[in-house]
């Protein structure tokens, strides 16, 4: 299937500073894509170029097969953007600004749709209040409603939950899930890993203006993630026998917990051998469990490796 967004050889320089380096990226139709990277990595710049707010220095961006500069009307009408900053009108009302956004993006008035969007973000009873009287969280809701007012096929959420309360986060996830079910492609940037971990189907990691890796989330976690096996011993052990040296075990929990790190990618994890060597050494255990490293650990590992 043709990707809905295709970025190739994209570069952006601000004066001498290269904010994006030769970016190649494909976003699939209908997926939730998490763009992950530390502050200043170039996430906002990349999004703003795709949306047409920032000019690219070189490279191409196509949206649904249309070039985003030559056929900007085609590409932009398909996109909704919730920006990172919180710029909102002040004297207007949520209802009016949503109606404005819808018109601006080329759609005829549709009060029913505006109502649906405002309701989905719990803004319906505030629809006629001046925006400046709303709280910060409410203002962000207004921005999300504005981005959805013209029924975009693609939604960009730039750092959507930075400084946002739990309730709004929940509302937002519900909206994102509903959008996804209706076939909308969602791209969210974040430096909160758990956000990407919870929501995204695929994850791209960007650092210093370069895309380091793009991978399905589950595969990323499987491939790059280390697993660990923790054994709970029946009797406390103070020193491990030399026969177990090769396993580089960690002894903890007052000598009652034994941790073994292994790589799921290898042919052999070494678990079977470890268990039989433990048996031979006379170490007994009454429980065991395995755990996987979080995306966070993977992310930190990736970013550090590249520096």
């Amino acid at each position, binding site marked *: 299937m043709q990707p809905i967004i295709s970025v190739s050889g994209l570069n952006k320089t*601000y004066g001498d500073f290269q904010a994006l380096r030769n970016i190649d990226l494909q976003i699939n139709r209908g997926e939730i894509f998490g763009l992950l990277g530390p502050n200043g990595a170039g996430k906002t710049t990349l999004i703003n170029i795709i*949306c*047409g*707010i*920032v*000019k690219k220095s070189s490279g191409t961006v196509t949206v649904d097969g249309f070039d985003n500069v030559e056929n*900007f*009307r*085609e*590409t*932009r*009408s398909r*996109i909704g*953007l919730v*920006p990172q*900053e919180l*710029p*909102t*009108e*002040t*004297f*207007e009302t949520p209802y*009016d600004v949503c*109606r*404005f*956004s*819808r*018109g*601006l*993006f*080329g*759609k*005829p008035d549709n009060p029913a749709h505006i109502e649906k969007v405002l309701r989905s973000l719990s803004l319906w009873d505030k629809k006629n209040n001046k925006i400046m009287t709303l709280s910060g969280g409410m203002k962000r809701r207004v921005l999300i409603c*504005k981005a959805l007012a013209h029924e975009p096929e693609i939604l960009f959420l730039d750092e959507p939950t930075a400084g946002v309360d739990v309730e709004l986060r929940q509302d937002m996830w519900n909206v994102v899930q509903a959008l996804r079910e209706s076939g909308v492609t969602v791209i969210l940037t974040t430096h909160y890993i758990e956000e990407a971990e919870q929501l995204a189907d695929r994850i791209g990691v960007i650092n210093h203006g370069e895309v380091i890796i793009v991978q399905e989330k589950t595969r990323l976690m499987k491939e790059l993630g280390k697993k660990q096996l923790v054994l709970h011993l029946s009797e406390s052990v103070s020193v491990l026998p030399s026969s177990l040296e090769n396993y580089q075990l960690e002894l903890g929990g007052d000598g009652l917990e034994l941790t073994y790190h292994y790589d799921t990618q290898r042919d052999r994890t070494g678990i079977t051998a470890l268990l039989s060597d433990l048996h031979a050494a006379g170490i007994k255990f009454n429980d065991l469990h395995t755990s996987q490293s979080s995306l966070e650990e993977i992310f930190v590992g990736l970013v550090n490796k590249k520096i």
Partner: protein
Amino acid sequence: MNFHAIRAIYRTEMARMMRTVVQSIVAPVLSTSLYFVVFGSAIGSRITEIDGVGYGAFIVPGLIMLAIMTESISNSSFAIYFPKFTGTIFELLSAPVSFVEVVIGYVGAAASKSVVIGMIILATAGLFVDLHIAHPLVMLLFLVLISVSFSLFGFILGVWADGWEKLTIVPVLVIMPLTFLGGTFYSISMLPPVWQTISLFNPVVYLVSGFRWAFFENSDVAVAVSFAMVMAFLLVCLFVVYWIFKTGYKIRC
């Protein structure tokens, strides 16, 4: 062409005028009435006629011109400066619109306001003096063209300005003097010859003169020359606006 976008911008801008109806309409009407009382009555009692027109009536076109020029500039410069200032301009930049829709929306709304204000002032003036408009259609044409060109000028000012000072200084330092020295309240034929020549370099002279011709059929410069000046100013502004959007000057980085 994205007509829904033009309508959205236009509607929002006009709604803002309704929201601030006192500031947008009552204020210019009040200040014009004051000019009228002060200049019309105080000076009018000394100068009875200029070129065969009673002084009170003579200043009406100039007063309207003064109001629509300042209103056009302030309305459209503010309309585009404000989103730049708050950051809401991101939406305009990411929308499927070209400069054509943006300019028609903002400049159209600002010019509409000016035309409405011009009409209201005209009606207000009608309460004070007997007005006879010789060429109503020409008057309307000048009113619309001048409103549009100065709204375009205001749009350019709003894009160029990177602070409130710049936004307010141009109307005060440039437009007000040019208007007062542009034959708003007198005929330039009343000036010494040297100043008459100098006045001809003031573009406002041509606008006021052409507009006044539509009322009384007398003017400082030929009406065709006035018309040509208005069109020239309009075209220059259109070109600058086109260039701004072509290059993304101060808007897109």
